[in-house]
């Protein structure tokens, strides 16, 4: 099986064209990017609102726990039956798993800013919008990035399901390999997804270090 994988990876023909490894990697990243972007657009404002005002904390916790429990492949299949095959069903399924970690990160980051700091900002005449943008968000950045990092990893790992329907991505190797009892190819998919996840996680860790206003908060 390992040999099959190595010979697959060693074959130059598998590195070119629309079914080649770079193309599949690109597709995988594209689906993941769309999902994380959409999830951020939903989760960041919501998390800021709840963290800043404290309204709806209970609903947030229960709702995001419910979202975490949803099986992505099942959701995607259901969406395919409702909407037909296409890019939307897998991306929506991925958005659903990306929202909880981002929401939790943003909410926790904003809610945990020292009240004294917020009070001080208010005392020097800052309005709520400025407090959020210039005080709370910068201080919350490490936790926000942590949530984003978790979301990206989960999405990268789960984006393989897109290949269950007619899309590409690294899951193509896994589904095609399983269908043909070609476990070398399955392993190619698994190893590439793993490698992609590790590389991205490393890059995000670096990014968190560079962007963080206080390094001690990031490297705990």
């Amino acid at each position, binding site marked *: 099986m390992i040999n099959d994988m190595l010979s697959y990876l060693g074959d130059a023909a598998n590195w070119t064209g629309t079914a080649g490894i770079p193309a599949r990697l690109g597709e995988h990243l594209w689906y993941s990017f769309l999902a994380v972007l959409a999830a951020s657009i939903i989760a960041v404002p919501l998390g800021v609102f709840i963290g800043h005002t404290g309204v709806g904390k209970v609903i947030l916790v229960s709702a995001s726990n419910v979202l975490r429990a949803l099986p992505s492949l099942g959701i995607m299949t259901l969406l395919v039956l409702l909407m037909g095959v296409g890019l939307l069903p897998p991306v929506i399924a991925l958005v659903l798993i990306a929202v909880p970690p981002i929401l939790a990160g943003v909410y926790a980051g904003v809610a945990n800013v020292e009240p004294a700091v917020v009070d001080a900002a208010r005392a020097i005449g800052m309005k709520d919008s400025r407090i959020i943008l210039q005080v709370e968000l910068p201080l919350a950045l490490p936790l926000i990035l942590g949530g984003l990092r978790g979301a990206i*990893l989960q999405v990268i790992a789960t984006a393989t399901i897109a290949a269950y329907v007619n899309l590409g991505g690294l899951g193509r190797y896994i589904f095609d390999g*399983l269908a043909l009892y070609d476990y070398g190819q399955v392993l190619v998919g*698994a190893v590439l997804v793993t490698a992609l996840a590790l590389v991205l996680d490393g890059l995000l860790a670096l990014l968190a270090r560079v962007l963080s206003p206080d390094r001690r908060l990031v490297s705990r």
Partner: protein
Amino acid sequence: MTKMKLPLFAALSMVAGSLVLAGCSNPTAATPSEDGASSSTVTVSSANFPESEIIGNLYAEALKSNGYTVETKFNIGSREAYIPALADGSIDLIPDYTGNLLLFIDPSADVSTPAAILSALPKALESKSLSMLTAAEAEDKDAVVVTRATAEKWKLTSIADLAAHNDEVVMAGPPEFKERAVGLPGLEKNYGFVPSKFEPISDGGGPATVKALLDGKVTAANIFTTSTAIPANDLVVLEDPKNNFPAQQVVPVAAAGKLDDGAQKAIDAISAKLSTSELIKLNEQVSGDAKVEPQQAAITWLTDQGLLSK
């Protein structure tokens, strides 16, 4: 560093997960059981999809009503798992499909006609210490299916007619359809049919594939002949005059010498009445909106056919 652990763990468990998945279909991974069943007990089994479980239930209920002690082990997996299980005695009887079973045992077998399969199969099974009973007329085989509208627009009756529209046809099917000899390579060889694009959908001709066909996202799809979606959506099964898809009649397979005459008779009586349309009806009850339990559907059918001795 606690942050690093979770993603790393997630990544590692993905690899582990894929290895487990891969292991599932590995014949050597099947646990060999001690000779569990005594000769008076018949262990009836099925492959891991609803139709097989329904037919398994037909066998089990018929044997029960004929006074046999029946143990059931349904959904045990694919051919890679259950053929060794039959040979080592962990199960005694399972429904299978003639063409694929023959090709599984002898990949170079002649499967060009239904008769060739039926004449070669007993001998092939004997080499594995297995035996077959009479095959049913019911056939669950691959087919190229189009909507009624497409069939009428292009005047399609056989797969060969589809070849005239190669450039316009997008075909859906499970990923293996693209590579297997009986899939696209066979359709090209036999009929010159080469779709402009192939859309892999991994639900084995299930609801997502049917939806893509009905939505017009694809023009043709690889769907099984016993799919309830065919009558439900008035789909047209294109004829396959050159037998590109090998015949797949339902056939009971048993470990050699496991079933006595009475048991064989009871199973043969089922096969004699099981036609493709009857099988579609059974599938409809279990997989359709009614959601009847396979066992209940089996009992009802056997009663209707007068096969349950009371």
